[in-house]
């Protein structure tokens, strides 16, 4: 069930350049169903900035009723969010959307992420590993300073890093790494900028894949039609990223 809750910040820290890891505690955590779901965060009690910010769930700790988000403080809203300290509260609406179908992977999965699309893949990797699925992580970042969670991903499986400027790992995009890797997996999961999602779909036309999309949002729950995309199904068919997604099987969404 979707809840709106004033959650308590238990930890916030900058883990890479302008990248913050924010952990909050509260009952909403218990409602989470799958990695890849997101929450809609009200960054201030004022009406300026007005809209909530969609942020993915990066890891869940059901035992302590906490979950973690990782986000880039870039615009006005995320910058305000980054100023919250342990003990402060944040108004969070969630969990929203449908996550990655963990049960679809059989033996080995590729998890392909770019930038702030990387965070939801972490909870996904944890859950896949817990089910005995081998995970390989291919993660792209702007530059060395923006890399986060490399060790955490390594602890769960083979991990390859690309940076645009080559300051860490392979120089270039994740697709450069994909070209070098064997295709010995059954399922891929991907989250990142839309051009990257496109490229990943191109790279593995014959594989089962699941992609997490981004769109500007209003309500976040499916009521305002802000976040729609057309689909390959028909001329008049569309999906809402917030409530039908953000994760869709490869080949469905026209971006």
């Amino acid at each position, binding site marked *: 069930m979707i809840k709106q809750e004033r959650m308590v910040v238990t930890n916030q820290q900058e883990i890479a350049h302008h990248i913050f890891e924010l952990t909050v505690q509260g009952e909403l955590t218990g409602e989470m169903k799958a990695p890849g779901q997101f929450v809609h965060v009200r960054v201030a009690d004022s009406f300026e900035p007005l809209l909530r910010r969609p942020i993915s769930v990066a890891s869940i700790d059901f035992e302590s009723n906490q979950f973690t988000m990782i986000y880039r403080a870039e615009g006005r809203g995320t910058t305000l969010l980054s100023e919250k300290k342990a003990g402060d509260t944040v108004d969070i609406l969630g969990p929203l959307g449908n996550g990655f179908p963990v049960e679809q992977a059989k033996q080995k999965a590729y998890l392909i992420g770019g930038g702030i699309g990387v965070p939801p893949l972490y909870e996904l990797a944890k859950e896949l590993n817990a089910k005995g699925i081998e995970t390989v992580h291919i993660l792209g970042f702007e530059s060395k300073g923006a890399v986060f969670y490399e060790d955490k991903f390594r602890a769960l499986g083979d991990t390859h890093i690309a940076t645009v400027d080559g300051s860490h790992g392979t120089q270039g995009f994740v697709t450069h790494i994909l070209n070098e890797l064997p295709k010995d997996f059954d399922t891929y999961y991907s989250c990142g900028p839309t051009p990257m999602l496109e490229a990943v779909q191109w790279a593995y036309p014959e594989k089962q894949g699941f992609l997490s999309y981004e769109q500007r949002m209003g309500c976040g729950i499916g009521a305002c039609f*802000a976040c729609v995309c057309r689909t390959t199904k028909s001329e008049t068919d569309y999906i809402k990223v917030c409530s039908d997604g953000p994760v869709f099987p490869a080949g469905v969404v026209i971006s």
Partner: protein
Amino acid sequence: MTNLNVQLPGLNLKNPIMPASGCFGFGKEYSQLYDLSALGAIMIKATTVETRLGNPTPRVAETASGMLNAIGLQNPGLQKVLGEELPRLEQYDVPIIANVAGTTTEDYVEVAKAISESPNVHALEINISCPNVKQGGITFGTDPDIARELTRAVKDVSSVPVYIKLSPNVTDIVSIAKAVEEGGADGITMINTLLGMRLDAKTGRPVIANITGGLSGPAVKPVALRMVYEVRKQTDLPIIGMGGVADVKDVIDFLSAGANAVAVGTANFVNPFVCPEIIGQLPERLHELGYESIEELVGRSHRL
């Protein structure tokens, strides 16, 4: 006992609070969050004859204390609304106000006639003020003569009272209000969004794919309130006021300015529980102000 009841043409409202059209879909999503029967009414998303996919994305952008939208009247079309959306809403004890849109007078008439016959549609809201579609919409709302004629045409076919939704993007909103009154409107809803624009700071490109969008939210409240006040001075038609309402104080402001009931749009995105919360706070707030009913309070700013 504070009395929140409001009687308007076609509408016997438990309380004066309703979600605004386009900000609540067809109620399905919010029904997961609370019991829709708590609401005074529901204004459903604009319905057109045919299925509409609306505008390309991005469709929303944030502005100072407000937002722009250019959804472009996306909706499943008259048949689906009649066959699926409205029947699903029948389970709730809440009157539906159906928002009607179109490109031609014939479109409006077709939708108005059919949708007004649905058992739970108690009133129509004729959207002559949508700034986000290339044809129809706002053009009907900016010329008094065209607005009058469209009102007449819709009145002729509707089996329920007709409210006309006014655009704020006009020199003289009172003249439009008067015109739709002459056309036989049973009431007015106001305001729709103000036409605005946001540019991407880096590229200078409009953020909204449609280039311009409709401004809503707290930023527009002073304009909305002024318009309700002006229209109330010049007509006795019932007014459902809206534009930037986000809390119970804003509701009191619109009622004071002369609105008989109040719709909440954008604020639903900020706080999905805003409507039931306001409804819960209204009795105490009325009491603090020394009023025992909504009707007593309505228009108090004009009586000072």
